[in-house]
């Protein structure tokens, strides 16, 4: 199979594996799963002034899911929250040349980004409301 070098690279050496303290207010955590195959993906962002300054992930799943989340963390870093919100799974598919059977992995990564951002927002909005 002519998989792109990028995907092989992300699979063999996933970037940004790890986690942040999820109780840190600057951190947003997204936890998503793919019931088709039982994959679980956790993606976290660290935000300063609406900019994502760092990202970490941990994925239990197949190579495509790992590569998709690894790529997602690279992409969101340095982006504003709004920019990150607009990342589409199709961009991940294209970048990694995922086969049709693995497209749900890219959907998972997109969902994880969105879930992390919404977690960050809800946490900070409620904080501001209280404060």
């Amino acid at each position: 199979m002519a998989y792109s070098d990028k995907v092989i690279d992300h699979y063999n050496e996933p970037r940004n594996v790890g986690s942040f303290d999820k109780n840190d207010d600057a951190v947003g955590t997204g936890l998503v799963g793919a019931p088709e195959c039982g994959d679980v993906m956790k993606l976290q962002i660290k935000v300063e002034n609406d900019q994502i300054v760092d990202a970490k992930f941990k994925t239990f799943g197949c190579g495509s899911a790992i590569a998709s989340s690894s790529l997602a963390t690279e992409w969101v870093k340095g982006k504003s929250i709004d920019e990150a919100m607009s990342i589409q799974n199709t961009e991940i598919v294209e970048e990694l040349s995922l086969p049709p059977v693995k497209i749900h992995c890219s959907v998972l990564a997109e969902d994880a980004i969105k879930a992390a951002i919404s977690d960050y927002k809800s946490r900070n909005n409620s904080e501001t409301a209280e404060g």
Partner: protein
Amino acid sequence: MSEVSSKSFSCEGCGAKLVSCLFCFDCSSLQSISEESDYFSALGISSEFDVDPDLLEEKFQHIASELHPDFYLNSTPQEKRLSERASTLLNQAYDTLKDPFKRADYLMSLKCKNVKWNDRVLPPTFLQEMFTLQEELDEMLENQDQQGLLKMREVLENRFQDLESGLLPSFRMLDSVEEPETVLEKLQMNLNAERYLRRLLDRIKIEETT
């Protein structure tokens, strides 16, 4: 009544009512495989979740003994091909229907062709729990914690059993309610959860055999 009632097939040759959509026992002829042929009609059992394992086994043996390519060595190329295809379908049907989880999954796919509902539904906090279990499993695998693994396997298998034993009442209910959506969602939730548990169990099993 079941939403998907058991279909009725008749022989392409003699017109007799078929037990299995794959073979006519009246005139001993292979039937062509159509879009309508599903796993239940291949095995000649009604399409519901409640399957008697003994009956399933008996039907499989009975039909396989007519379809198998071993009995078509000197037949026409067309019959040979048909026998290979029909046997393949019969094997798939048998493998799917004898496993309650696969059977439920397959039945859902038949029943939900035109129903829309949230197919990613999970019990609350389930995903967090799965993530934590995966992390714990990582640790056990790293430390070669055989006892921990054994215990985790037992716990997971019990939960799997619990979910599976909930399938039959739900499917029965499905046939009796007016609005099946909520029951379908509950069924889907159980099946989704089972898949996550299965994933964890697979990791433990792979470890055990290597």
